[in-house]
């Protein structure tokens, strides 16, 4: 564990110096994420001009939900996103070899090597909006519920990472350029909507099979509506199941990997 933490510290050092190498791009990316935040906040503000509630949530509560998914998105953009982008290239070009022979877990190395320094600035901006939405909330909340919310959002980031991996790993078999990552980005819309809008089979899809509804909507719901054992149990079960599936697909993928000609 200590070795992995030390290694991650080196990843951070390397990533910051690399990011500052391309300064214009560094600032462009910050502007891009700010625009993404603006669009998402404006979207719900405009919708709420036409209806008092969306899925039972008023404007204050919707802003908490928006703050939650912007924070999860920022965490993923900072920690995983660049690594996920390069993974299909490594698999297709046979460059995975370099990671398989290193004396550390290849999944750890490939998932965390590149820390996106510019997105880290955006993570702070997202955090400011997140806390602003919490402090603007007219209902009372305590430190314990805040702590619970943060833990659930970290869990949400892990779910997001797992689903993203599941959309990329088919590259081992299809040898396509990006796997199903475009489909993943479209599915990501489900994370940006309150889970209560989904009914029937769509609800099963987004809360169990591809649990985008558990990333930000469940945590926001627990924070707004109070602790619910059934929801927590659901979260733990689905997250563990998803992690097991990712590890198993990863291992199967490695078995199919045939190096440079893969």
């Amino acid at each position, binding site marked *: 564990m200590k070795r992995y933490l030390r290694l991650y510290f080196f990843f951070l050092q390397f990533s910051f110096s690399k990011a500052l190498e*391309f300064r*214009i*791009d560094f600032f*462009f*990316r910050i*502007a*891009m994420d700010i*625009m*993404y935040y603006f*669009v998402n906040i*404006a*979207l719900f503000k*405009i*919708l709420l*001009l*036409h*209806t*008092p*509630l*969306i*899925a039972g949530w008023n404007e204050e509560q919707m802003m908490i939900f928006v703050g939650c998914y912007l924070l999860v998105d920022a965490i993923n953009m900072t920690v995983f996103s660049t690594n996920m982008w390069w993974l299909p290239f490594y698999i297709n070009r046979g460059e995975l070899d370099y990671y398989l022979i290193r004396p550390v877990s290849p999944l750890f190395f490939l998932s965390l090597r590149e820390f996106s320094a510019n997105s880290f600035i955006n993570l702070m901006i997202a955090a400011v909006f997140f806390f602003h939405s919490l402090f603007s909330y007219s209902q009372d909340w305590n430190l314990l519920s805040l702590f619970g919310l943060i833990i659930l959002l970290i869990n949400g980031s892990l779910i997001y990472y797992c689903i993203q991996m599941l959309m990329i790993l088919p590259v081992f078999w*299809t040898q*396509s*350029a990006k*796997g*199903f990552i*475009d*489909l993943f980005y*479209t*599915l990501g*819309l*489900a994370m940006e*909507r*309150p889970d*209560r*809008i*989904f*009914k029937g089979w*769509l609800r099963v899809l987004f809360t169990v099979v591809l649990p985008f509804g558990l990333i930000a909507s469940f945590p926001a719901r627990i924070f707004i509506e109070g602790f619910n054992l059934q929801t927590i149990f659901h979260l733990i079960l689905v997250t563990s199941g998803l992690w097991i599936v990712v590890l198993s697909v990863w291992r199967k993928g490695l078995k199919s990997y045939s190096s440079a000609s893969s």
Partner: protein
Amino acid sequence: MKWWRFVVASEIRKILAFRTDFWVTFLGQTCIQIFIARSLWQAIFEASGKTVMEGYTIETMTLYYLIVPIGSKMLTGENMGFLSREIYEGTFNRYLLYPISFFNYKTLTYLTYSAFYGLQLCLAFIGYQLIFDQFDLNQVIQLSYGLFFFMLASYAYCNLALFIELISIWADNIWSLMVMARFLCFFFGGAYIPLNFFPDILQKIIQFTPFPYFVSLPINAMMGKLSTKEMILGVVILLVWSLIFNWLAKRLWEKGQYTYSGVGI
């Protein structure tokens, strides 16, 4: 065979190289976007207690969000975003050696993708109208107008994309600028929510930008919501924006040719 036929044939081969991925992504993206949008709007219609909002019922809203994902793909294509890497690596040289103009080549490859997605849009639109037993001559005319406007909008967007891409001669990496342009275009174009839902003042300001002509105009044409006058005005405005972006891109290209080292950065 003329040069443009080679380019089109080669692009179609590229599109169809990974057929499974292509169709899974196309069907998946289209269906998911419709289902998510319909769920959201159903919740909004229920909460507001209305059956018609800003001229849209839940059915017309569903058609709107059927057109949005494929129309957006037609608009933004898939053949952009590589130029910065080519400049960075020095492989941009090939455009200087090709016996055809860089602009013609890029525009043609871009429009090939747009036309291909246009075909998908036809299939989706006809399928939707057949399911609801509404397919008649009127729908064929609307579909034709919609496709015409989307192709015109794609041409205008292609020029905008070329302008942004050529900035990479100076700025190394402009991927984020392309994404920003897409965000602006989709949000202020009405891809996320129809423009009728925007506050009046914002709707008026947006009309002075190219964004509503990229997305909202073609969708409204396809849904039969445009008068002849609005269509003619739309064509003129799209052509003017195309000329502006084309002029800007060509100025950058003229300057950039002398800055580009040809050996990568």
